[in-house]
């Protein structure tokens, strides 16, 4: 099902519609088919204007079996279209899904337009006579039947999908032919039967000129790291332990070794962080990626990186916790951990991506800060950003920031080399092994200011604590101010961070379309916060902070700025819908 969703997404992007997707799949790899927990879903919203969310209420639901119908029907808009695979609505499957009677036969679907299509039967018929194809394989092609049908409904281009099927299954002629046949049969079914009264015409969206492609957050983040490596001249060293959903970044990077990218699948999360830190000591761009539970394990090493003052990027693709939690579901509840989750005074910069394609820029920014300030940086993404995709205006390489590692190589004043001396940004020199005359030792024990020698001096420890904190705080001077979108001079500011961006903007747009005044702003830097944050907060009567956690940013804002900001929380494993935010905004106008 995820494959089918991806295909539709690509065809839609190529057609020029703006789109956002929301894949939703079970944690089990081969969850039992037909059961409620085994349902794998893929949601996409596309339109002829810019899209900010995967859509709250889809207008068409394709349900391949009763369980899929049951788990997703609640999302469908009133009067929406339900296309069901009629063949699967047998007694056994109905019972598995917990239906006493078939919803197709009672009036439980009365509020929707229901289309019963025997997809299995039609797929089997379409694939008859393909040499070497088993019945099982033929049945599996039915997802492509559904794809063909939906592609017809929305007038998606056929050729790209056909070409993709031909390439993807090139190694297995019978599967390729079956999928192609099923796809065409689905399309033709829409074209020739008169079952479907409607065919949706969605015109291409107006967009800034340039060359576009669809990109997922995971790929964008990986490419951002590669771009940062190219623009800094530092070879990328990415160490990671397999974990959902962060593994996608490891997979993507490991395909690009021709960029001098070293990927390392470590024995555990702790090793991954240390491997990356070791590579950073050696003058590479050290990065490690994980999801929530892995962050717990990396904490001590991140503290070491704070002490060593070496560049290190730690990517946290957040997921619902605590513990194993909901490994494939979305939540943005690691903010407090990113900001404070280490023993001792261990401040570090935190950057959060806010849209799938923007993960590219966020990764470059995380590297820029890490390298410029010789510090570990936590880069927050989440399950939704990582798995979703959207069209991306491909940037020109020359427009990407140049990152200067500024290695110290000059040993001419070697009698005076001080590994913990500082530049105007309070960053210390980065000297890589192999540099003659600048041999030095660093470690986790407290450093003497300047010399870096081990020091237990009380005054020195307090000074070093302040220097480390001051270095991070000073980054506020080097990041863009918080930008407020407030066309109508509102009293209410909706302030967000991370993947809530789309839902907040969409909700605000709908409120404004009814003449409501609401301002929005979104943080990409969570530590330090932009310098003008306090001024922005002070200029609004009310501040609403919607978060996919129990209210972590709002707590920081209240503590740091003494403002009566209000939180709005959701912890259901799914992103905000714009309707609920719209309601929360309206309540406060």
């Amino acid at each position: 099902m995820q494959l089918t969703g991806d295909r539709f997404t690509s065809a839609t992007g190529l057609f020029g519609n703006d789109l956002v997707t929301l894949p939703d799949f079970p944690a089990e790899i081969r969850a039992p088919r037909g059961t409620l927990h085994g349902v794998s879903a893929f949601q996409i919203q596309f339109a002829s204007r810019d899209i900010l969310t995967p859509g709250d209420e889809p207008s068409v639901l394709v349900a391949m079996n009763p369980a899929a119908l049951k788990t997703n029907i609640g999302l469908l808009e009133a009067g929406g279209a339900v296309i069901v695979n009629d063949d699967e609505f047998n007694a056994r499957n109905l019972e598995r899904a917990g239906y006493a009677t078939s919803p197709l036969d009672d009036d439980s679907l009365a509020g929707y337009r229901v289309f019963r299509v025997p997809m299995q039967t039609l797929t089997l018929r379409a694939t008859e006579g393909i040499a070497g194809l088993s019945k099982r394989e033929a049945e599996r092609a039915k997802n492509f039947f559904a794809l063909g049908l939906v592609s017809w409904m929305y007038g998606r281009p056929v050729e790209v999908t056909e070409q993709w099927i031909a390439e993807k299954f090139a190694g297995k002629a019978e599967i390729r032919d079956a999928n192609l046949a099923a796809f065409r049969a689905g399309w033709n079914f829409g074209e020739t039967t008169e079952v479907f009264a409607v065919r949706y015409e969605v015109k291409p969206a107006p967009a800034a000129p340039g060359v576009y492609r669809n990109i997922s957050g995971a790929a964008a983040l990986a490419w951002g790291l590669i771009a940062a490596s190219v623009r800094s001249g530092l070879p990328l060293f990415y160490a990671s332990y397999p974990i959902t959903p962060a593994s996608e970044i490891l997979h993507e990077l490991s395909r690009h070794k021709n960029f001098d990218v070293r990927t390392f699948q470590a024995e555990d999360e702790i090793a991954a962080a240390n491997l990356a830190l070791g590579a950073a000591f050696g003058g590479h761009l050290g990065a490690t990626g994980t999801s929530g539970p892995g962050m717990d394990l990396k904490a001590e090493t991140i503290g070491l990186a704070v002490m060593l003052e070496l560049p290190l990027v730690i990517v946290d693709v957040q997921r619902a916790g605590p513990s194993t939690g909901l490994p494939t579901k979305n939540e943005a509840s690691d903010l407090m951990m990113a900001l404070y989750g280490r023993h001792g005074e261990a401040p570090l910069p935190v950057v959060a991506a806010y849209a799938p394609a923007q993960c590219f820029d966020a990764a470059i920014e995380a590297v820029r800060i890490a390298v410029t300030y010789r510090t570990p940086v936590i880069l927050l993404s989440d399950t939704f950003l990582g798995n979703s995709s959207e069209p991306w205006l491909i940037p020109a390489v020359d427009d990407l920031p140049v990152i200067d590692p500024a290695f110290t190589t000059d040993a001419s004043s070697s009698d005076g080399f001080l590994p913990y001396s500082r530049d105007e940004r309070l960053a210390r020199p980065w000297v890589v092994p192999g540099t003659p005359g600048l041999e030095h030792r660093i470690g986790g024990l407290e450093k003497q200011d300047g010399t870096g020698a081990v020091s237990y001096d009380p005054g020195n420890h307090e000074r070093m604590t302040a220097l480390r904190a001051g270095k991070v705080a000073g980054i506020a001077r080097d990041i863009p101010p918080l930008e407020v979108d407030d066309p109508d001079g509102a009293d209410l500011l909706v302030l967000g961070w991370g993947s809530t961006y789309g839902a907040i903007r969409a909700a605000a747009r709908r409120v404004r379309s009814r003449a409501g005044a609401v301002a929005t702003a979104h943080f990409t830097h969570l530590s330090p916060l932009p310098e003008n944050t306090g001024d922005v907060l002070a200029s609004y009567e009310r501040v609403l902070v919607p978060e996919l956690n129990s209210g972590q940013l709002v707590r920081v804002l209240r503590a740091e700025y003494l403002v009566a900001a209000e939180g709005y929380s959701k912890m259901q494993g799914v992103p905000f819908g714009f309707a609920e935010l719209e309601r929360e905004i309206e309540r406060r106008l």
Partner: protein
Amino acid sequence: MAVAAKDRKAWASGEEPRWCPGCGDYAILAAIESFLPELGVPREKFVFVSGIGCSGRFVYYVNTYGVHAIHGRALALASGLAVARPDLSVWVVTGDGDSLSIGGNHLIHALRRNVPVKVLLFNNQIYGLTKGQYSPTSEEGKITKSTPFGALDHPFNPLALALGAEASFVARTLDVDRAHLTGVLRAAAAHRGTAFVEIYQNCNVFNDGAFDTLTDKQTRALNQIRLEHDRPIRFGPEGERGVVQRGDGSMEIVNVADVGEDALVVHDAHHHDPSLAFALAHLSERPTGPTPIGVFRSVERQVYGQALDDQLAVARARLGVGDLASLLGSGHTWAVA
């Protein structure tokens, strides 16, 4: 190669070592400081990485690059460095608690990968820095602060563990035997891949005399079984004792006169099968009687750092040298005018 005293001095960082007076670590430090220059590798190419424990302080005392990392993780950090920078000579200094307890996972995985790192495990069979708890190499029944009724843990046999983890180079030596220690370090330095060296190190404060059997003037000749490649394994003041292999593969100590020299095991450190080295590792479970020292195993196989570099070259050959603009513009794209 003879090393002038002034050269030796250049390899000391000048920071004053802070181990307890009489600690075995001093002897190891002195041996290493005088051995490193003979390798002919410039000082700036060396990196020492350590974890936590008394051994962890080692890095501050040699005038090379160094990282004093966190407990148990030195080998993981060093692996990242060595894999990223195969041009460096990377050495890890660790202890029995650091690498066999909290860092056990990193040790076994580094060994199986064969990363280009030399691992010097200072085994004193005790936690020194935390003031005297039993360690994973302490004997069963050991009375310590945390085990007033005796330790229940069965100890690790570090060499058997390393061999089980597919180590390509495994050796054991003694802190106080400068010549033997230097010889083993020389072999370790020459080895491509991970070299695992267990150094029996006396902690005279919390576990004094643990290795006396092997180091005391009176007893050492009776108990040191010095392994030499391609030589029959025999020991004792007159070489009167030797090692034979039983039918079941295990080893046994015998009087050479009883079996004849031809019956003795001939040491083969380069055998691809680790069984012989494994049996030797188990010849003495504790260093309280005749115990083999020297190089148990030294075989060549793929080295991780080099292999990764080779893979990058393959990727460049197959995909072309990475070009960012073409990567960003790859796949299905469309233009908006």
